[in-house]
């Protein structure tokens, strides 16, 4: 429960009693990182302890050191780079195509009341179906390989992103559209300077949801449809019961997603939606 009136008084340079400013910004950041990593470190220690004490066989659950060794081996043999590279390339290509197609589509739909009313149920239907359910048909059409996986990533993201973009445009206040038009904004300018930024909160949350779907679609598609990538590594390890490699791959997948979230989505949100003081859409 932070007190209400305190903040404003400080900024208003009232009489601060005993001023003892805390360490600078970098200090706060290091502290936050520490706070974030500490529970994970405790969890890892617990894992090591439990495996040590109960003595579960490696076939059921590997020790921390085994997993670390597996990651090291994968890194040394070049497998890690190969799988990581394959997965990242597919996600990147798939999401770039998805953003490039879904944003214009969503904005076009949102700009027209009739179109958005018509497409709304269709899109909602497709969002539920997108991604994994397309794997059989995608592999049938495109064959096993890169193409099918990229198609799945695109497909998983496209509908969520298009739907959220459309909702975002629909929710731009009419007064904002009217004022832009009365200031003489043309079609092009409306798109870049009103519709796109106005729909941004919803687009960002769509991107978050979409990337989540895309990421899951990638792993599933790689398990089924390729001979490289993190999903494939998982699948291969499962067939030989190498639990150390399975857990290692899972940790890598988790870290990758956290990095995507911290380094890509969070800054995007900070620099657009939060910077402009707009509320985020639903997540």
């Amino acid at each position, binding site marked *: *429960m*932070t*007190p*209400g*009136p*305190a*903040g*404003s*008084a*400080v900024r*208003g*340079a*009232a*009489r*601060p*009693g*005993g*001023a*003892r*400013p*805390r360490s600078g910004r970098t200090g706060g950041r290091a502290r936050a990182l520490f706070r974030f990593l500490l529970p994970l470190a405790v969890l890892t220690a617990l894992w090591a302890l439990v495996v040590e004490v109960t003595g579960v066989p490696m076939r059921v659950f590997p020790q921390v050191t085994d997993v670390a060794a597996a990651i090291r081996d994968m890194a040394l043999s070049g497998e890690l780079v190969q799988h990581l590279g394959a997965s990242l390339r597919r996600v990147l290509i798939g999401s770039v195509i998805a953003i490039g197609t879904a944003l214009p589509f969503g904005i076009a739909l949102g700009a027209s009341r009739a179109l958005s009313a018509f497409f709304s149920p269709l899109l909602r239907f497709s969002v539920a179906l997108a991604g994994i359910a397309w794997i059989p048909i995608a592999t049938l059409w495109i064959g096993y390989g890169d193409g099918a996986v990229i198609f799945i990533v695109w497909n998983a993201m496209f509908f969520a992103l298009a739907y959220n973009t459309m909702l975002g445009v629909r929710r731009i206040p009419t007064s904002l559209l009217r004022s832009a038009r009365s200031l003489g904004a043309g079609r092009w300018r409306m798109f870049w300077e009103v519709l796109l930024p106005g729909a941004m909160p919803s687009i960002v949350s769509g991107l978050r949801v979409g990337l989540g779907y895309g990421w899951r679609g990638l792993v599933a598609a790689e398990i089924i449809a390729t001979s490289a990538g993190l999903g494939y590594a998982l699948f291969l390890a499962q067939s030989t019961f190498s639990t150390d490699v399975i857990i290692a791959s899972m940790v890598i997948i988790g870290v990758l997603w956290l990095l995507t979230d911290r380094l890509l989505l969070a800054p995007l949100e900070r620099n657009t939606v939060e910077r402009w003081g707009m509320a985020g859409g639903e997540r």
Partner: protein
Amino acid sequence: MTALVIEGLEKVYTDAYSGEEVVAIGDVSFTVEQGEFVSVLGPSGCGKTTVLNAVAGFVDPTGGEVRVDGHEVRGPGPDRGVVFQSHALFPWKTVLGNVTFGLRVQGIRRREREERGREFLELVGLDGFERRYPHELSGGMQQRLGVARVLTNEPAVMLMDEPFASIDAQTRRRLQEDLTRIFEKRRPTVFFVTHDIDEAVFLSDRIVVLSHRPSSVQEIVPVDLPRPRTWRAAVDAPAFRDTVARINDLLRVDEDPEAGEPEPAGGGAGA
């Protein structure tokens, strides 16, 4: 008999970001008698709401004491009902559900609490809306419900935190007259926080004028207006105009353009 005693109240905050200490309330003392209507008035950001929050038990004072009916305040309790600026009605309860919430806490049986709830809804003019949900009411009706919810609970003091600040001017006049009428009829003890001088003078028996932060009591102004009061009579009464003018002067004396910051509405989900 004295319902509320505030003695040497002090509140110092530590800013969460900079770690600096801010004195919100320096030294505030006054009392409210039973059946009395007392307003607290002061410049923006002077900590009026903090005084109310301390009385309500939402914040712990760093110094001094608050006593209600002779007992020292520790945390929120049903003897001090609060009417919030943001209504703070429960969206998931009907009008009747909101108004009888306090009685349900007391364990009063359904039939009796609904009967009493209806009585107070009628008092504030909300009879016939029992089954509606708060979002279906207008802003003015929502605040009537906020008042009824507290009155039904029959607290020792009713605390009102700028209850009409986010309501349009026309409706506000009506609500003020209705509040006066209810007050004159049932004589609850009211502690009212506002920044509107006219409102304070119209409603109150006495007005506590606070100074700038760190706030202390600048002066306690009695209001010498006959009851029952109406706006029509008040605006014509010399006593009304004189009191308003006097408070205006009091507040202007140490007017400081640098300090003209808006007061956050009690923090959280205000307005």
